[in-house]
């Protein structure tokens, strides 16, 4: 299908995470918590009710000592473009109240907490478990409310939230550019909190459509792959690895299949 709306300036913000550099330190998680007013509870060990916009999975090659290898996979929202190239992420079309939407200017999937009424259909739809439900009212003990970032509204109980690619940072950068009568944002003007927090520089963020952005080149690297690509979710988060077993773990393969050599058999949607 031809895309009429595909005007010249359209951005597709995306991320490349180098798993060969990711040490699993968790700085990206903490950076995200503090940037995005993510709440916390006394017990966060049940990872299925713990709000994390970026979670880190630790996987192993399951080989016995001392051939064992491990790898960390940090997972923000994959900002899926979805079936049909653009605008049909698994989660967006299912939301009955348009509380989550695909932004054609940036490719970012929004989440509007004041609109969401907590049906959780989007969570069922997202294969990456990127969406988190506010099972509890958020509480900031002692004087911790004072550190909340005013650019990101705290969420109320009963709604879904997820990684926004730090959309407020985009808004701020765009506003600044507008005031300075500029049309384009420089690569470093809009960076996500997790990319900035990563102490090893494993996370690169930028416009996947822009040849001058680092992500453009990285995503085309032979080491690049995406998680669950075969589902046709079309994520804008790419990963780099030099390890074959990691690449294989990133998707589902029948025994005879080789990662990177699979043609997608799913029809495109509209």
């Amino acid at each position: 299908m031809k895309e009429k709306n595909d005007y010249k300036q359209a951005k597709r913000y995306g991320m490349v995470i180098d798993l060969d550099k990711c040490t699993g330190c968790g700085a990206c998680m903490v950076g995200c918590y503090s940037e995005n007013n993510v709440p916390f509870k006394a017990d966060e060990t049940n990872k299925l009710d713990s709000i994390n916009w970026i979670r880190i999975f630790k996987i192993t090659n399951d080989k016995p000592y001392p051939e064992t290898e491990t790898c960390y996979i940090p997972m923000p929202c994959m900002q899926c473009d979805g079936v049909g190239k653009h605008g049909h992420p698994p989660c967006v079309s299912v939301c009955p109240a348009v509380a989550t939407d695909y932004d054609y200017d940036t490719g970012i999937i929004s989440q509007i907490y004041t609109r969401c009424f907590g049906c959780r259909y989007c969570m069922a739809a997202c294969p990456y478990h990127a969406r988190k439900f506010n099972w509890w009212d958020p509480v900031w003990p002692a004087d911790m409310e004072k550190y909340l970032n005013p650019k990101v509204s705290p969420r109320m109980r009963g709604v879904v939230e997820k990684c926004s690619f730090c959309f407020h940072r985009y808004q701020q950068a765009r506003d600044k550019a507008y005031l300075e009568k500029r049309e384009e944002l420089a690569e470093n003007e809009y960076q996500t909190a997790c990319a900035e927090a990563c102490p090893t520089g494993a996370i690169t963020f930028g416009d996947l459509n822009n040849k001058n952005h680092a992500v453009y080149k990285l995503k085309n690297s032979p080491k690049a792959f995406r998680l669950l690509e075969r589902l046709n979710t079309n994520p804008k988060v790419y990963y780099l690895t030099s390890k074959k077993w990691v690449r294989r773990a990133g998707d589902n393969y029948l025994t005879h299949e080789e990662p990177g050599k699979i043609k997608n058999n799913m029809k495109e949607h509209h």
Partner: protein
Amino acid sequence: MNETPLIPAGVKRCSKWQFSLWMAAATAVLLWGVYAMYLIWYKGLNQTNMNDAYGFALWIWADLAVIALGGGAFFSGFLTYIINKNELKNIINLAVVIGFICYSSALLILAIDVGQPLRAWFIFWHANVHSMLTEVAFCLSCYFAVLTIEFIPLILENPRLDKKPFLHHLSHNMHGIMAIFAATGVFLSFFHQGSLGGVAGVLYGRPFAFREHILIWPFTFFLFTWSAAAYGPCFTILVTKITELITRKKLVKDNVIHLFAKISGWMIITYIIAKTIDTIYWAFVTAPGFGFTLMDFYASSTYNIGLLFAEIVICGFIPGLILITKRGRENSFLLMSAIILGVIGVSLNRWVMVLQVMAVPVFSFNEWYTYMPSWQEVATTVLPVAYGIIVISLAHRYLPVFPQEKELNPID
């Protein structure tokens, strides 16, 4: 002034005391559910054992199941008013009452299930037409309105209400146009039963749930409508039989039951053949395209391949075959077995299409997700059962639900 009795003429009902006791028991269960419901509304969904992996759980299953079981209403309406199977007039009242109970319960469950009940109406106001859930919400609400309209004339037939001339005429007129409502109901039901199937079928991120599409609808859309029409009558028959057992009276003539059972049987058989084809296509074409084998989906001890066998063979082909054979449906043991298997079968299908969808890991490195409902979830799920018992008891006591009762149980 001589009061008209509340109880319809010509039928015998149990004593006030007996009835009160029975109602008290049901009400106690109901109140337990109401208390749990209060906790959930007041404290939020943290009262449940749902989590981010199990965002849909017991309630959504209950919702889907009651809607499927309430499918007897639209399908009997279709048969009675559109295909003109007049015998079914003798059971349609019950089907309507069950439908009313099921759909009001479904709406109530949805109101508990969402995280922000006070904003639940955003689904109408900010409707996303692409969402299956939007379709469900609209059709469900409209059909509930239709069922209410279908229920009203029956209520108005209560002897004391019927005495009021306005109500008497209202009831009469409503009967006259009931076919139009029934037709509307059939149309609405076709869509919402289907969209409930679509809810899972469109999830292309969930290989276990996802199905190929015909036009804009996934296969499950059609399978859900079909199965509701097929198995809904089983539930109507089951409730009839249970009522007969409790009241120790025959309420519906065998020929009516047998006709209904026969139609249900043919629907089940055709449905289960379609379901089998769907399963084979999904197992050998859809799933491998995502890198899954069929057995990957059944690799847990809870969700093993036995479940698929149970759904298709034990609760599909077996009841279907029993019901389409004259000797099967006319043997009361076989008939009962078949309708019970049918009710289980459709509930199982809904369970699988909600809970197994959540349980199957999509990442190769994830474990199967497990979930056990909290007591609050159980209580609120039992609530509609108690509510249903209360409504059916009241309806049976005060309304002429079973037109053949008088004839079958003459009072001397």
